[in-house]
Protein backbone atom coordinates (compact mmCIF):
# COMPACT_ATOMS: atom_id res chain seq x y z
CA UNK A 1 0.00 0.00 0.00
CA UNK A 2 1.21 3.54 -0.67
CA UNK A 3 2.20 5.57 2.36
CA UNK A 4 -0.55 7.28 4.28
CA UNK A 5 -0.37 11.04 4.56
CA UNK A 6 -1.25 13.05 7.67
CA UNK A 7 -3.59 15.92 6.85
CA UNK A 8 -5.62 18.41 8.79
CA UNK A 9 -8.84 19.72 7.37
CA UNK A 10 -11.29 22.07 9.02
CA UNK A 11 -14.73 20.62 8.39
CA UNK A 12 -17.72 22.76 9.31
CA UNK A 13 -15.53 24.70 11.72
CA UNK A 14 -13.98 21.69 13.43
CA UNK A 15 -10.31 20.80 12.85
CA UNK A 16 -9.88 17.13 11.88
CA UNK A 17 -6.44 15.50 11.96
CA UNK A 18 -6.54 12.30 9.94
CA UNK A 19 -4.18 9.92 8.18
CA UNK A 20 -5.37 9.02 4.72
CA UNK A 21 -4.31 7.02 1.71
CA UNK A 22 -3.44 9.50 -1.08
CA UNK A 23 -6.13 7.99 -3.30
CA UNK A 24 -8.94 8.64 -0.80
CA UNK A 25 -11.47 11.00 -2.37
CA UNK A 26 -12.70 13.96 -0.36
CA UNK A 27 -16.28 12.72 -0.55
CA UNK A 28 -15.23 9.42 1.04
CA UNK A 29 -13.29 11.20 3.77
CA UNK A 30 -16.44 13.16 4.58
CA UNK A 31 -18.90 10.29 4.38
CA UNK A 32 -16.96 7.23 5.48
CA UNK A 33 -14.36 8.58 7.89
CA UNK A 34 -16.14 11.62 9.34
CA UNK A 35 -19.70 10.29 9.11
CA UNK A 36 -21.03 13.33 7.24
CA UNK A 37 -23.36 11.48 4.89
CA UNK A 38 -25.21 14.56 3.63
CA UNK A 39 -22.88 14.85 0.64
CA UNK A 40 -24.01 12.20 -1.82
CA UNK A 41 -22.32 10.28 -4.60
CA UNK A 42 -24.51 10.27 -7.69
CA UNK A 43 -22.53 9.84 -10.87
CA UNK A 44 -18.98 9.57 -9.46
CA UNK A 45 -17.79 11.22 -12.71
CA UNK A 46 -17.99 14.97 -11.88
CA UNK A 47 -21.23 15.49 -13.75
CA UNK A 48 -24.18 15.42 -11.36
CA UNK A 49 -23.08 17.70 -8.51
CA UNK A 50 -24.64 15.57 -5.74
CA UNK A 51 -21.25 15.57 -3.98
CA UNK A 52 -20.85 19.38 -4.06
CA UNK A 53 -19.23 20.90 -0.97
CA UNK A 54 -17.39 24.15 -0.41
CA UNK A 55 -13.62 24.09 -0.29
CA UNK A 56 -12.19 27.36 1.04
CA UNK A 57 -15.50 29.05 0.26
CA UNK A 58 -15.89 27.80 -3.30
CA UNK A 59 -18.11 24.99 -4.52
CA UNK A 60 -16.44 21.86 -5.83
CA UNK A 61 -17.35 18.30 -6.67
CA UNK A 62 -15.85 16.28 -3.84
CA UNK A 63 -15.84 13.08 -5.93
CA UNK A 64 -13.12 14.72 -8.03
CA UNK A 65 -10.93 16.09 -5.25
CA UNK A 66 -8.41 14.03 -3.29
CA UNK A 67 -8.65 14.35 0.48
CA UNK A 68 -4.93 15.22 0.49
CA UNK A 69 -5.66 18.21 -1.77
CA UNK A 70 -7.84 19.60 1.02
CA UNK A 71 -4.98 19.54 3.55
CA UNK A 72 -4.91 22.87 5.38
CA UNK A 73 -8.23 23.94 3.88
CA UNK A 74 -11.72 24.61 5.14
CA UNK A 75 -14.53 22.40 3.97
CA UNK A 76 -18.18 23.19 4.42
CA UNK A 77 -20.84 20.55 3.87
CA UNK A 78 -24.62 20.65 4.06
CA UNK A 79 -24.30 19.67 7.75
CA UNK A 80 -22.56 23.02 8.34
CA UNK A 81 -25.24 25.16 6.71
CA UNK A 82 -27.93 25.40 9.37
CA UNK A 83 -29.57 23.52 12.19
CA UNK A 84 -33.05 22.06 12.37
CA UNK A 85 -34.13 24.97 14.55
CA UNK A 86 -32.30 27.56 12.56
CA UNK A 87 -32.31 26.65 8.88
CA UNK A 88 -30.05 28.43 6.40
CA UNK A 89 -32.15 30.62 4.05
CA UNK A 90 -31.41 28.16 1.23
CA UNK A 91 -32.68 25.23 3.30
CA UNK A 92 -35.69 27.33 4.21
CA UNK A 93 -36.20 28.15 0.52
CA UNK A 94 -36.10 24.52 -0.63
CA UNK A 95 -38.62 23.67 2.08
CA UNK A 96 -40.97 26.60 1.43
CA UNK A 97 -40.91 26.29 -2.37
CA UNK A 98 -40.97 22.48 -2.60
CA UNK A 99 -37.51 22.45 -4.18
CA UNK A 100 -37.07 18.74 -3.55
CA UNK A 101 -38.82 15.44 -3.93
CA UNK A 102 -36.52 12.50 -3.17
CA UNK A 103 -33.87 14.90 -1.82
CA UNK A 104 -30.87 13.09 -3.26
CA UNK A 105 -29.59 16.10 -5.19
CA UNK A 106 -30.57 18.66 -2.55
CA UNK A 107 -27.38 18.96 -0.46
CA UNK A 108 -25.34 19.46 -3.63
CA UNK A 109 -27.90 21.90 -5.03
CA UNK A 110 -27.77 23.94 -1.83
CA UNK A 111 -23.96 24.01 -1.70
CA UNK A 112 -23.80 25.05 -5.37
CA UNK A 113 -26.52 27.65 -4.82
CA UNK A 114 -24.55 29.08 -1.88
CA UNK A 115 -21.62 29.69 -4.24
CA UNK A 116 -23.99 31.20 -6.79
CA UNK A 117 -25.47 33.64 -4.24
CA UNK A 118 -21.99 34.56 -3.05
CA UNK A 119 -21.03 35.49 -6.64
CA UNK A 120 -24.42 36.91 -7.63
CA UNK A 121 -26.46 37.95 -4.57
CA UNK A 122 -29.44 39.04 -6.65
CA UNK A 123 -29.58 36.57 -9.53
CA UNK A 124 -32.05 36.56 -12.40
CA UNK A 125 -33.85 33.33 -13.23
CA UNK A 126 -31.41 32.78 -16.09
CA UNK A 127 -28.42 33.33 -13.82
CA UNK A 128 -29.79 30.76 -11.39
CA UNK A 129 -30.31 28.20 -14.14
CA UNK A 130 -26.79 28.83 -15.43
CA UNK A 131 -25.27 28.86 -11.97
CA UNK A 132 -26.69 25.41 -11.23
CA UNK A 133 -25.76 23.82 -14.55
CA UNK A 134 -23.37 21.46 -12.78
CA UNK A 135 -26.16 19.92 -10.71
CA UNK A 136 -28.69 17.37 -11.94
CA UNK A 137 -32.05 16.61 -10.39
CA UNK A 138 -34.08 13.61 -11.53
CA UNK A 139 -37.32 14.59 -9.80
CA UNK A 140 -38.33 18.22 -9.65
CA UNK A 141 -37.99 19.51 -13.21
CA UNK A 142 -35.82 22.30 -11.71
CA UNK A 143 -38.59 24.86 -11.65
CA UNK A 144 -39.11 24.78 -7.91
CA UNK A 145 -35.37 24.67 -7.32
CA UNK A 146 -35.09 28.01 -9.13
CA UNK A 147 -37.91 29.37 -6.97
CA UNK A 148 -36.19 28.07 -3.84
CA UNK A 149 -33.00 29.92 -4.71
CA UNK A 150 -34.95 33.10 -5.51
CA UNK A 151 -36.68 32.78 -2.13
CA UNK A 152 -33.32 32.47 -0.39
CA UNK A 153 -31.81 35.38 -2.32
CA UNK A 154 -34.66 37.64 -1.26
CA UNK A 155 -34.43 36.50 2.37
CA UNK A 156 -30.65 37.00 2.44
CA UNK A 157 -30.93 40.44 0.82
CA UNK A 158 -33.51 41.67 3.33
CA UNK A 159 -31.50 40.20 6.23
CA UNK A 160 -28.56 42.23 4.96
CA UNK A 161 -30.63 45.42 4.77
CA UNK A 162 -32.01 45.03 8.29
CA UNK A 163 -28.58 44.08 9.72
Amino acid at each position, binding site marked *: *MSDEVAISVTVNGQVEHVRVEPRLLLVHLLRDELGLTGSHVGCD*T*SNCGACTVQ*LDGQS*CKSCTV*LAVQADGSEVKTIEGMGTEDDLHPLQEGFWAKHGLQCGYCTPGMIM*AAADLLERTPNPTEEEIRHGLEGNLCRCTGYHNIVKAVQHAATAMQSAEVSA
Partner: protein
Amino acid sequence: MIPAEFDYVAPDTLQEAIAARTAGGEDAKFLAGGHSLLPLMKLRLAAPTLLVDLRKVPGLSGVTRENGHWRIGAMTRHAVLQDSHELGAISTVAAGIADQQIRNRGTIGGSLAHGDPASDLTTAFLAYEGTLTATGPDGPREVAATEFFQDYLTTALAEDEVITEVRMPRLEGYGYGYEKFTRRAEDWAMVGVVALVKQADDGTCEDVRIAMTNMGSTPLRARAAEDALRGRPLDAGSIAEAAGHAADGTDPPADRNASEAYKRHLAQVMTRRALTSATK
Protein backbone atom coordinates in the same frame (compact mmCIF):
# COMPACT_ATOMS: atom_id res chain seq x y z
CA MET B 1 -14.57 4.45 -8.50
CA ILE B 2 -11.25 4.55 -6.69
CA PRO B 3 -7.94 5.34 -8.39
CA ALA B 4 -5.12 2.81 -8.30
CA GLU B 5 -2.60 3.33 -5.51
CA PHE B 6 -0.04 6.08 -5.83
CA ASP B 7 2.31 8.10 -3.67
CA TYR B 8 1.73 11.79 -3.11
CA VAL B 9 3.94 14.76 -2.37
CA ALA B 10 3.17 18.48 -2.22
CA PRO B 11 6.54 20.26 -2.38
CA ASP B 12 7.01 23.84 -1.16
CA THR B 13 9.18 25.05 -4.02
CA LEU B 14 9.31 24.73 -7.79
CA GLN B 15 12.80 23.18 -7.66
CA GLU B 16 11.64 20.49 -5.24
CA ALA B 17 8.61 19.77 -7.38
CA ILE B 18 10.71 19.31 -10.51
CA ALA B 19 13.22 17.18 -8.61
CA ALA B 20 10.42 14.98 -7.21
CA ARG B 21 8.93 14.58 -10.68
CA THR B 22 12.31 13.67 -12.18
CA ALA B 23 13.04 11.18 -9.39
CA GLY B 24 9.59 9.63 -9.84
CA GLY B 25 10.39 8.56 -13.39
CA GLU B 26 8.02 8.28 -16.32
CA ASP B 27 5.06 7.15 -14.21
CA ALA B 28 5.06 10.29 -12.05
CA LYS B 29 2.70 13.16 -12.84
CA PHE B 30 2.18 16.73 -11.76
CA LEU B 31 -1.20 17.53 -10.22
CA ALA B 32 -2.90 20.92 -10.58
CA GLY B 33 -6.71 21.12 -10.28
CA GLY B 34 -7.05 17.42 -10.96
CA HIS B 35 -10.10 17.83 -13.17
CA SER B 36 -8.58 16.11 -16.17
CA LEU B 37 -6.23 13.77 -14.35
CA LEU B 38 -8.42 12.47 -11.52
CA PRO B 39 -11.34 11.41 -13.76
CA LEU B 40 -8.83 9.44 -15.86
CA MET B 41 -7.34 7.89 -12.73
CA LYS B 42 -10.76 6.95 -11.38
CA LEU B 43 -11.53 5.17 -14.63
CA ARG B 44 -8.05 3.58 -14.40
CA LEU B 45 -7.21 4.99 -17.81
CA ALA B 46 -4.25 6.59 -16.04
CA ALA B 47 -2.37 5.03 -13.12
CA PRO B 48 0.55 7.27 -12.14
CA THR B 49 2.72 5.91 -9.33
CA LEU B 50 3.46 9.36 -7.90
CA LEU B 51 1.53 12.63 -7.92
CA VAL B 52 3.52 15.81 -7.40
CA ASP B 53 0.93 18.37 -6.32
CA LEU B 54 1.81 21.94 -7.34
CA ARG B 55 -0.63 23.57 -4.92
CA LYS B 56 2.01 24.75 -2.42
CA VAL B 57 4.49 26.08 -4.98
CA PRO B 58 4.49 29.87 -4.49
CA GLY B 59 3.96 32.41 -7.27
CA LEU B 60 2.03 30.24 -9.72
CA SER B 61 -1.38 31.98 -9.45
CA GLY B 62 -2.81 35.29 -10.49
CA VAL B 63 -3.16 37.69 -13.38
CA THR B 64 -0.92 40.72 -13.93
CA ARG B 65 -0.50 43.21 -16.75
CA GLU B 66 2.93 43.85 -18.18
CA ASN B 67 4.32 45.37 -21.40
CA GLY B 68 1.28 44.80 -23.54
CA HIS B 69 0.74 41.29 -22.17
CA TRP B 70 -1.36 39.51 -19.62
CA ARG B 71 0.77 37.27 -17.44
CA ILE B 72 -1.32 34.43 -16.08
CA GLY B 73 0.14 32.05 -13.49
CA ALA B 74 -0.24 28.41 -14.50
CA MET B 75 -2.21 27.52 -11.34
CA THR B 76 -4.73 30.31 -11.94
CA ARG B 77 -8.14 28.70 -11.78
CA HIS B 78 -10.74 29.07 -14.52
CA ALA B 79 -13.01 30.90 -12.02
CA VAL B 80 -10.40 33.64 -11.56
CA LEU B 81 -10.19 34.17 -15.32
CA GLN B 82 -13.98 34.11 -15.49
CA ASP B 83 -14.07 36.97 -12.98
CA SER B 84 -11.25 38.94 -14.67
CA HIS B 85 -13.46 40.72 -17.20
CA GLU B 86 -10.56 42.92 -18.32
CA LEU B 87 -9.20 39.82 -20.05
CA GLY B 88 -11.92 40.03 -22.71
CA ALA B 89 -12.13 36.85 -24.76
CA ILE B 90 -10.06 34.83 -22.27
CA SER B 91 -12.56 35.64 -19.52
CA THR B 92 -15.53 34.78 -21.74
CA VAL B 93 -13.94 31.51 -22.81
CA ALA B 94 -13.13 30.54 -19.21
CA ALA B 95 -16.70 31.33 -18.13
CA GLY B 96 -17.97 28.80 -20.67
CA ILE B 97 -15.94 25.85 -19.34
CA ALA B 98 -18.05 23.08 -17.80
CA ASP B 99 -19.78 24.39 -14.65
CA GLN B 100 -18.90 26.58 -11.67
CA GLN B 101 -17.66 23.71 -9.50
CA ILE B 102 -15.22 22.63 -12.20
CA ARG B 103 -14.17 26.21 -12.95
CA ASN B 104 -13.40 26.60 -9.24
CA ARG B 105 -10.81 23.78 -9.48
CA GLY B 106 -9.42 23.57 -13.03
CA THR B 107 -6.35 25.62 -13.95
CA ILE B 108 -5.07 27.15 -17.17
CA GLY B 109 -1.72 25.35 -16.83
CA GLY B 110 -3.50 22.01 -16.44
CA SER B 111 -5.70 22.70 -19.47
CA LEU B 112 -2.75 23.55 -21.68
CA ALA B 113 -0.52 20.73 -20.39
CA HIS B 114 -3.30 18.20 -20.92
CA GLY B 115 -3.56 19.42 -24.52
CA ASP B 116 -7.09 18.21 -25.19
CA PRO B 117 -8.32 19.60 -28.55
CA ALA B 118 -11.81 19.72 -27.00
CA SER B 119 -10.78 22.14 -24.26
CA ASP B 120 -11.57 25.81 -24.47
CA LEU B 121 -8.51 27.65 -23.17
CA THR B 122 -6.19 25.78 -25.54
CA THR B 123 -8.12 27.35 -28.42
CA ALA B 124 -7.94 30.83 -26.90
CA PHE B 125 -4.18 30.39 -26.34
CA LEU B 126 -3.74 29.53 -30.02
CA ALA B 127 -5.92 32.42 -31.23
CA TYR B 128 -3.99 34.91 -29.10
CA GLU B 129 -0.65 33.46 -30.27
CA GLY B 130 0.33 33.34 -26.61
CA THR B 131 3.54 32.00 -25.14
CA LEU B 132 4.23 30.01 -22.02
CA THR B 133 7.17 29.38 -19.74
CA ALA B 134 8.10 25.75 -19.16
CA THR B 135 10.61 25.13 -16.40
CA GLY B 136 12.51 21.86 -16.10
CA PRO B 137 15.70 20.63 -14.40
CA ASP B 138 17.74 22.82 -16.79
CA GLY B 139 15.77 25.99 -16.13
CA PRO B 140 13.01 27.90 -17.91
CA ARG B 141 12.30 28.15 -21.64
CA GLU B 142 9.66 29.91 -23.69
CA VAL B 143 7.29 28.00 -25.94
CA ALA B 144 4.97 29.68 -28.46
CA ALA B 145 1.38 28.51 -28.85
CA THR B 146 2.04 27.74 -32.51
CA GLU B 147 4.65 25.14 -31.47
CA PHE B 148 3.01 23.86 -28.32
CA PHE B 149 0.24 21.53 -29.51
CA GLN B 150 1.68 18.56 -31.36
CA ASP B 151 -0.94 15.82 -31.45
CA TYR B 152 -3.90 14.46 -29.49
CA LEU B 153 -3.07 15.03 -25.78
CA THR B 154 0.53 15.62 -26.83
CA THR B 155 2.37 18.89 -26.32
CA ALA B 156 5.92 20.22 -26.60
CA LEU B 157 6.27 19.88 -22.83
CA ALA B 158 8.95 17.48 -21.58
CA GLU B 159 7.87 15.04 -18.86
CA ASP B 160 9.58 16.91 -16.05
CA GLU B 161 8.74 20.43 -17.19
CA VAL B 162 6.26 22.57 -15.28
CA ILE B 163 4.28 25.28 -16.99
CA THR B 164 4.78 28.23 -14.67
CA GLU B 165 3.23 31.07 -16.62
CA VAL B 166 1.10 31.76 -19.67
CA ARG B 167 1.31 35.08 -21.50
CA MET B 168 -1.33 36.46 -23.83
CA PRO B 169 -0.82 39.68 -25.82
CA ARG B 170 -3.40 42.30 -24.87
CA LEU B 171 -4.46 42.86 -28.50
CA GLU B 172 -5.72 46.41 -28.04
CA GLY B 173 -8.37 47.36 -30.53
CA TYR B 174 -9.48 43.81 -31.31
CA GLY B 175 -13.10 42.74 -31.00
CA TYR B 176 -13.78 39.16 -30.00
CA GLY B 177 -16.37 36.46 -30.30
CA TYR B 178 -16.59 33.01 -28.75
CA GLU B 179 -19.08 30.37 -29.82
CA LYS B 180 -19.28 26.96 -28.21
CA PHE B 181 -21.80 24.43 -29.44
CA THR B 182 -22.89 21.86 -26.87
CA ARG B 183 -25.76 19.46 -26.43
CA ARG B 184 -26.14 20.14 -22.72
CA ALA B 185 -25.16 23.24 -20.76
CA GLU B 186 -22.12 21.82 -18.96
CA ASP B 187 -20.76 19.79 -21.88
CA TRP B 188 -17.49 19.96 -23.74
CA ALA B 189 -17.68 21.74 -27.10
CA MET B 190 -18.82 19.72 -30.09
CA VAL B 191 -17.12 22.53 -31.94
CA GLY B 192 -15.98 25.88 -30.52
CA VAL B 193 -14.62 28.96 -32.28
CA VAL B 194 -12.65 31.94 -30.93
CA ALA B 195 -12.49 34.91 -33.33
CA LEU B 196 -10.37 38.04 -32.80
CA VAL B 197 -10.81 40.85 -35.32
CA LYS B 198 -9.11 44.22 -35.71
CA GLN B 199 -11.03 46.65 -37.84
CA ALA B 200 -9.10 49.37 -39.74
CA ASP B 201 -10.36 52.98 -39.78
CA ASP B 202 -11.83 52.46 -43.24
CA GLY B 203 -13.94 49.53 -41.98
CA THR B 204 -11.84 46.80 -43.57
CA CYS B 205 -10.37 43.87 -41.71
CA GLU B 206 -6.84 44.77 -40.60
CA ASP B 207 -6.19 41.50 -38.77
CA VAL B 208 -8.15 38.38 -37.92
CA ARG B 209 -7.39 35.25 -35.92
CA ILE B 210 -9.77 32.33 -35.81
CA ALA B 211 -9.08 29.22 -33.73
CA MET B 212 -11.27 26.15 -33.44
CA THR B 213 -11.94 23.62 -30.68
CA ASN B 214 -12.42 19.93 -31.42
CA MET B 215 -11.85 20.08 -35.18
CA GLY B 216 -8.73 17.89 -35.20
CA SER B 217 -6.17 16.21 -32.97
CA THR B 218 -5.06 19.66 -31.72
CA PRO B 219 -6.77 23.04 -31.57
CA LEU B 220 -6.57 24.53 -35.07
CA ARG B 221 -6.36 27.91 -36.77
CA ALA B 222 -8.87 28.44 -39.59
CA ARG B 223 -6.26 29.93 -41.91
CA ALA B 224 -8.33 29.81 -45.11
CA ALA B 225 -11.16 31.73 -43.46
CA GLU B 226 -8.68 34.27 -42.05
CA ASP B 227 -7.09 34.79 -45.47
CA ALA B 228 -10.49 35.23 -47.05
CA LEU B 229 -11.36 38.07 -44.66
CA ARG B 230 -8.10 39.95 -44.17
CA GLY B 231 -8.14 43.26 -46.05
CA ARG B 232 -11.81 42.94 -47.00
CA PRO B 233 -14.60 45.26 -45.86
CA LEU B 234 -16.24 43.77 -42.76
CA ASP B 235 -19.90 43.13 -43.53
CA ALA B 236 -22.36 40.25 -43.36
CA GLY B 237 -21.48 39.13 -46.87
CA SER B 238 -17.69 39.01 -46.45
CA ILE B 239 -18.06 37.34 -43.05
CA ALA B 240 -20.37 34.64 -44.42
CA GLU B 241 -18.03 34.02 -47.31
CA ALA B 242 -14.96 33.75 -45.08
CA ALA B 243 -16.80 31.51 -42.59
CA GLY B 244 -17.57 29.15 -45.47
CA HIS B 245 -13.84 28.33 -45.52
CA ALA B 246 -13.58 27.56 -41.78
CA ALA B 247 -13.42 23.79 -42.23
CA ASP B 248 -11.12 23.87 -45.27
CA GLY B 249 -8.26 21.43 -44.88
CA THR B 250 -9.59 19.98 -41.60
CA ASP B 251 -10.24 16.33 -40.92
CA PRO B 252 -12.23 16.33 -37.68
CA PRO B 253 -12.67 12.96 -35.99
CA ALA B 254 -16.28 11.83 -35.66
CA ASP B 255 -17.37 11.18 -32.09
CA ARG B 256 -20.56 10.07 -30.39
CA ASN B 257 -22.00 13.58 -30.62
CA ALA B 258 -21.21 14.54 -34.18
CA SER B 259 -20.15 13.09 -37.51
CA GLU B 260 -17.26 14.58 -39.44
CA ALA B 261 -19.65 16.30 -41.86
CA TYR B 262 -21.68 17.77 -39.01
CA LYS B 263 -18.55 19.14 -37.31
CA ARG B 264 -17.45 20.74 -40.56
CA HIS B 265 -20.87 22.34 -40.86
CA LEU B 266 -20.76 23.52 -37.24
CA ALA B 267 -17.29 25.04 -37.75
CA GLN B 268 -18.66 27.26 -40.51
CA VAL B 269 -21.74 28.34 -38.57
CA MET B 270 -19.82 28.96 -35.32
CA THR B 271 -17.17 30.92 -37.22
CA ARG B 272 -19.79 33.14 -38.82
CA ARG B 273 -21.37 33.82 -35.44
CA ALA B 274 -18.04 34.42 -33.69
CA LEU B 275 -16.89 36.82 -36.43
CA THR B 276 -20.21 38.63 -36.26
CA SER B 277 -19.84 39.18 -32.49
CA ALA B 278 -16.20 40.20 -32.97
CA THR B 279 -17.15 42.96 -35.41
CA LYS B 280 -20.13 44.38 -33.54
